[in-house]
């Protein structure tokens, strides 16, 4: 077993990055995720593994640093929170277009605008539907615990390199700030430059004698060429949908009602499930772990067996659209959300189930 530690979610992201053999972190401070860079700076990863950590002048700069580094085959990560992630969207779109691997962590806070520094899940649409311009998707992972903040960094890098695509961790201020036990995975060695060159033949690492020069770009001015780029991306997203769906079901076997929730909301629903069952309400929880690819079929087959569904999110109703698209119109699906940084209590969630679904 790996090393056991008590850590904040943000610290777990930082420690996981070092242990995943990450080559560089580039970021800009913003609450509630500044601990990621603070932990890294204190930890001196350059001495531990040779990992570079740089505080950029803005999120625009940090995402473009990520773009540059990823284009040379290096394993890089950035983190931010909602307003900063908005600033990064152009760069993320470029990375999707140029097919570059990287992990981007969004520790979501309430919006719109400067909003609040309190936790929220209001960036679901931005993360899942392609927040920047053009037809692209990110692989989106939704960690619900400090353990998953750690594990999803490693998983994120694996998926990013497997599909050559940016991966987003969509967490929130509570998962980022809360302290929990975490089992850390063992150090994965950073790749040498020679290994990077050998493993990433697509990367701009310096022209080798036996190959053409490499160009990292998202530009193809010829419409037929750009359509080919788009078709290639769509084929990749289809493959991701076929192979990478992750979800968790709790008490779904005998459930008459269902909560669907991701990240922190799923943690709250887990407690709400226990409270409701103590009252004799047979409710289960379906937790998508990958938000793209969305577990469409899995959710549909579970929902088929229940009388009604409450989608619980810390937003005004975003993932509910994907839940509804997954199933027929004759299913009763309602939304319960608190927003602006308010975390609903499990009691509140049970009351919402009773009012909107069971009684409603």
């Amino acid at each position, binding site marked *: 077993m790996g090393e056991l530690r008590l850590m904040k979610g943000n610290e777990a992201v930082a420690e996981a990055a070092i242990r995943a053999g990450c080559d560089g972190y580039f970021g800009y401070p913003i609450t509630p995720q500044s601990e990621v860079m603070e932990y890294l700076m204190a930890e001196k990863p350059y001495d531990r593994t040779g990992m570079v950590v740089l505080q950029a002048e803005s999120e625009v*700069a940090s995402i473009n640093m*990520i*773009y*540059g580094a990823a284009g040379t085959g290096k394993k*890089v990560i950035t983190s931010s929170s909602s307003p900063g992630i908005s600033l990064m969207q152009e760069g993320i779109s470029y990375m999707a277009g140029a097919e570059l691997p990287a992990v981007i962590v969004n520790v979501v806070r309430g919006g719109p605008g400067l909003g609040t520094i309190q936790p929220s899940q209001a960036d679901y649409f931005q993360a899942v539907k392609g927040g920047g311009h053009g037809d692209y998707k990110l692989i989106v992972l939704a960690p619900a615990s400090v353990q998953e903040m750690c594990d999803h960094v490693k998983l994120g890098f694996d998926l990013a390199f497997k599909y050559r695509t940016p991966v987003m961790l969509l967490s929130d201020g509570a998962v980022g700030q809360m302290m929990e036990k975490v089992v850390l995975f063992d150090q994965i060695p950073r790749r040498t430059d020679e290994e990077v060159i050998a493993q990433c033949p697509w990367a*701009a690492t310096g022209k080798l004698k036996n190959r053409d020069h490499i160009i990292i770009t998202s530009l193809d001015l010829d419409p037929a060429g750009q359509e080919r780029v788009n078709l290639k991306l769509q084929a990749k997203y289809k493959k991701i949908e076929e192979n990478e769906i992750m979800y968790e079901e709790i008490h779904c076997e005998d459930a008459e009602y269902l909560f669907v929730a991701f990240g922190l909301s799923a943690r709250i629903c887990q407690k709400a499930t226990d409270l409701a069952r103590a009252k004799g309400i047979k409710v289960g929880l379906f937790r998508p772990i990958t938000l793209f690819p969305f577990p469409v079929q899995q959710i549909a087959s579970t929902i088929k067996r229940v009388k009604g569904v409450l989608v619980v999110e810390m937003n005004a109703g975003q993932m509910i659209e994907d839940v509804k698209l997954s199933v027929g119109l004759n299913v009763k699906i309602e939304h319960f959300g608190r927003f602006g940084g308010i975390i609903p209590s499990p009691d509140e969630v049970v009351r919402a189930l009773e009012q909107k679904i069971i009684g409603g």
Partner: protein
Amino acid sequence: MEELFAKPEIRKPENIVYKKTDLMVDRPLSYCPGCGHGTVHRILMEVIEEMDIQGDTIGVSPVGCSVLAYDFLDIDMLGAAHGRAPALATAIKRLWPHRFVFTYQGDGDLAAIGTAETIHACNRGENITIIFINNGIYGMTGGQMAPTTLPGMRSSTSPYGRDVLTMGYPLKMTELVAQLPGTHYVTRQSVHTPGNARKTKKAIRKAFDIQKEKKGVGWIEVVSNCNSGWKMTPVQANKWMEDNMFPFYPLGDIKVDGKLIEVAK
């Protein structure tokens, strides 16, 4: 000229005194005839050839007329988003410290949308080379006003001439970055005559050489023409550049070996 081509015998190998470097990809450039971009490309590749660093160089191209520079330069390259080349170059150099890393940027790219990335890369003293093509206009998008457009100069978005009171003053980025401790070599050159092109080539060589010493940014501004955007013939454009651009953007070294050059008043 025509007679030259009529006499293939004078093109014997022993008579060749100059030829295009093999590091330029053999394809037609996308630039307008007479544009300075192509000349800078060529001398940049000559430097890389002479230093024998084709395999050790990673370039970053901008968004602007030179967006396709990577198609012409036979080295590994990345195309940055508009203005962000210094951010890419920063990360590349940090993670590949033994590579030679350069950005190639226009004045809109470097001095407007990318001002922050440019200044901060310079201020951090990144060990990169920045090649800055200042043609006083947005060439690629059809001749709009740039931050470097001269007072009174016409462009498609300053059709009556740049009015500094409402449109602001031309930005002298080169003088500005020379003030920063992170820049080691800062110069302003041109390529409109063979003599000037040779000086620019020397400057690019110097900037690449200082990457080995890890002393900070090497910066070459090339005051250039945009005959299409300026709506002039190439010859007129070069003359106009000498008469108008050079007085405002004087050629020569501004900072050498980390020290500002005293300009005689």
